[in-house]
């Protein structure tokens, strides 16, 4: 029996981008308002899962040729890297700092080292969720 997914597929094409954008917004906003790497990562995974549901695994893989295991590893490198980075400033492991900077177009912005750490969390969460879902999904 062949399912007719035309509505789901059409909607998904728009919705998944919106979810993805919202996930990125939530990720960057995390330090001041609800959000952060963990939620952002989960939401991105949700967008990807939606794509997987609407289309088949092969299509998604051709569109986004990402090895999620490696993404997990890169995320861990980011997280550990921010920890080790503090050694270069004679600070204990995982010390974080922040400052306010002026940018030409964007105006005054706060930049923190936790963002790099959070990026690591973000990548690990996506990597883990997608590795598991993809592996189980592929297994026939």
């Amino acid at each position: 029996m062949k399912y007719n997914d035309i509505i789901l597929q059409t909607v998904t094409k728009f919705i998944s981008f919106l979810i993805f954008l919202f996930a990125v917004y939530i990720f960057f906003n995390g330090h001041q308002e609800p959000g952060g790497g963990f939620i952002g990562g989960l939401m991105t995974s949700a967008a990807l899962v939606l794509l997987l549901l609407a289309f088949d695994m092969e299509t998604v893989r051709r569109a986004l040729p990402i090895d999620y295991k490696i993404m997990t590893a890169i995320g861990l490198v980011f997280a550990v890297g921010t920890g080790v980075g503090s050694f270069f400033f004679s600070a204990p492991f995982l010390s974080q700092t922040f400052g306010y900077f002026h940018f030409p177009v964007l105006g005054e912005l706060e930049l923190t080292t936790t963002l790099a750490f959070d990026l690591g969390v973000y990548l690990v969460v996506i990597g883990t969720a997608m590795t598991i879902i993809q592996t189980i999904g592929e297994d026939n």
Partner: protein
Amino acid sequence: MFTILHLAIIAPFLAAVLVPLLYKFIPRIHTGWFVLIVPIILFSYFLSYLPDVSGTGSVMKTFEWIPSLGVNYIAYVDGLGLLFALLITGIGALVVLYSIYYLDKHKEQLNNFYTYLLLFMGAMLGLTLSDNLIVLYTFWEITSISSFLLISYWYTKEKSRYGALKSLLITVMGGFALLVGFVLIASVTGTYSIRGILDASDQLADSPLFLPAMLLILLGAFTKSAQFPFHIWLPDAMEAPTPVSAYLHSATMVKAGIYLVARMTPLFAVSAYWFWLVTGFGLLTLIWGSLSAIRQTDLKGILAYSTVSQLGMILSMLGAGAAALHYDSVDNNAYTMAVAAAIFHLINHATYKGSLFMMVGAIDHETGTRDIRRLGGLMTLMPISFTIAVIGSFSMAGLPPFNGFLSKEMFFMSMVEIAHFPQYSVDSIGILLPIVAWTASVFTFVYCMMLVFRTFTGKIQKEKLPTKPHEAPFGMLLSPLILVALVVFIGFFPNTLVPTIIEPAMASIMPELAQTGSFGVDIYFWHGFTPELFMTVGVVLLGTAIFLALQKWNKMHAVFPENRLFNQAYNRSLEGLDRSSHALMSWHMTGLVRDYFIYIFSFTVVLLLFSLFGTGAFTIDVENMVPVSPYEAVLSLVLVGSSLILMFTRSRLKAVIALGVLGYTVALFFVLFRAPDLALTQLTIETVSVTLFLLCFYHFPQIFDALKETKFHAVNFVISVTVGLTVTLIGLSASGTRLFPAISDYFLENSYKEAGGNNVVNVILVDFRGFDTLLEILVLGIASLGVYSLIKLRLAGGENK
């Protein structure tokens, strides 16, 4: 400060990192040539310490590794440590040189070999030049591990793997005993520093832990030095490439046990147990090893048992030397001679046994066999190897003018001397000591003769040899030639070693005696017509007679079957261990998740309820509770309802949906309690996990149909109800008890000030408790890899079928 001495000790480890790179990128040059540089430089470097340790001198360099925890890396060089450092680097250099010709650069995995070898070299240096017992123990285990790796170097051979595992199990068992012994000592003296412990030796002697600590440390030393009945691993270790046998299993690693006994002598020598155990097991091993050696037909087997036997001999001398510590000064203290003999023989053994191993390796390499029943008549074909064999074996047999004769005489002398020791009831059975020593020496003589004459004289049996024999390449003979040159040199000028190495090493073993004056060691050939001389003459006469008798008696091996008693005990206990652990595991590891949940939940409930009521922590304080709002009441009802549906539904899809309802309701609770972060997370998690469940269920069998017949399990019911009750009780009790002020105030106050963030939850996650998050995402990553490999591996396994 980090000094050159520290660098020298860890240099082999650093070099080990480079070996695979050199092997990969410069394949045209044999990797051994690069490795050779390391021991040569280290040897010359350690030679420069000779003046520093002369007399009672020592050098101590401290590097503050983790000063905040008081963990220091203390390198300590005294006579004993330097002796071993020179042996390790000196023999190491010769072995590396030899291995360049022994191991073919095209056929062998040189990167593995030299990495393991350097690992061993570094560990051995660290072991002998350390002042801290824990550091010593760590390096001790690294030598066991590198020995395991080197024995199993030809890992495709069944025998190599068996031998490697055997040596690892036995030496690591001893290693654990050693660790416990060290901890016992430290608990009495309050320090792990060897210097500090020797200063506090009186304190230890009065402690009830003295004897247990001593026995445990001796167990460690005996297993490492292959003493009876733990010697069984050494013959099987001969499956290693010959350079490894020459290096680890005759010259250095097996002497780590001797090093330890020597190091601990000032601590334990006051005890009669020490004297009898070390001397007794040493002599027993000496005679057992030499008797086993003459039964061997494999040249390396002979050498292995001979090493066992000679190690026993060195230990027995150290044990006898303990008697010297009962006197206050070196004057008229004849027992110090036993210690001198032990050290002297340790050096001699390294020289002649190293050369013999290398000679046997050359024969194996050129003829293709090591079986003395197939060898013979090689004298004219391999004249240089023959010369090496004659000098090495005659020295081992104790014949003049080689160094082995001198130390054998000293051995006899100290055994005769110790028989008159007035304490420890030596006078009753003490006469046995020289008799055992003498008998063992006769058999030593016999196997030494077998080694030379069965291999090199007689008729050559070319049809039995796999290849056409010819002399080994010069590079392969260079190292053994250097060693036999040392055998002869030490034989004629033994006293060059006395002030430089032997007396400083004696000073480390007998530090208090060394303060009272020089040991006055003088080694020479002719002592006059003393008992020792007659013993040597007797050994030669009787030994020759036995050898000639055995020569004609070809069925000797049938008459003296090899004693497999201890090997059988080892194999049986290994099998028993295997069987019983298998039985234990299959008893409780049923493979059913349901059973595992029962274990987990029962233990959780028992532990939690016990600590809740056992410590009187249970309180319910209703006063501070907020009244339940209508929203919360409705949500709670939905929660309960959906979980009931989840339990009783027979449709898989319904179950997944009910689970989703559960999760979203919890998210709504978070909204009610004004936790937007949690609510968001819960919502997305629920979405993703429902998908995951759908995927998983796709693969499940139709278990829901089977559920119709499932009976009611009273035990499971009780457990699940108790779990629910326990969690509820703990929740109520926790909200009613407040022992400490909440930490949330601190976070609220400092979140923006310290971390520049207004979202407290996120600041906690990435900053205040960032370490937790780091480890959590690490666990996440590991879990995903676990799922991946489980599923992929199962697929691969299925394809194989």
